[in-house]
């Protein structure tokens, strides 16, 4: 069974601070996705990374896929209250269903 471990589980920071959240697995994935989910809504896809070592930037968010395609990180620079939400990583491998981690719940305080 493929598992994705996300850390930290909870994170509360002040506006303007930087943060990094992690997604780790013992399994190799062909691609990894990051989602943000706000209360009362479904997850919204932020990015998909497919190549080991790949780095993608989305404004203040930087996503990295590990060289071995087993782990990923999300770094947010100068966090804003609008970044508050549940950040989920999800791994895909072949035709197997997408596997989601439990998420990191981020709270950015103004």
């Amino acid at each position, binding site marked *: 069974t493929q598992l994705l471990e996300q850390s930290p589980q909870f994170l509360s920071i002040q506006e303007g601070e930087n943060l990094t959240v992690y997604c780790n697995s013992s399994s190799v994935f062909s691609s990894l996705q990051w989602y943000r989910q706000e209360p009362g809504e*479904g997850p*919204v896809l932020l990015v998909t990374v497919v190549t080991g070592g790949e780095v993608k930037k989305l404004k203040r968010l930087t996503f990295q896929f590990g060289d071995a395609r087993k782990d990923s990180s999300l770094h947010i620079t100068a966090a804003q209250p609008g970044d508050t939400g549940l950040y989920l990583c999800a791994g895909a491998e072949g035709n197997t*269903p997408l596997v989601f981690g439990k998420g990191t719940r981020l709270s950015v305080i103004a």
Partner: protein
Amino acid sequence: EAGVAQSPRYKIIEKRQSVAFWCNPISGHATLYWYQQILGQGPKLLIQFQNNGVVDDSQLPKDRFSAERLKGVDSTLKIQPAKLEDSAVYLCASSPWNTDTQYFGPGTRLTVL
């Protein structure tokens, strides 16, 4: 472009009752997914449809859960009878043919008392 629609948004029932959820995917999306998201966890796939055929239902508790997508468009998920541990948000998602990108609806929050 309209997103994935789900109804109802909230449902409260007593254990052993039945409940049904409805999902209308984004127009033209061939693939439809139902997920269960228990509080504090990530979504878990219950069933995946490709048009009106089932691709994966390995994690669907078939003794009490059923789902259909008769015309390959909208879908219903039913629980009969419900148990306390079924309390969760039920998310529907859809994706275009042959892509990994899934678009989620807002979910139905089910509370079983």
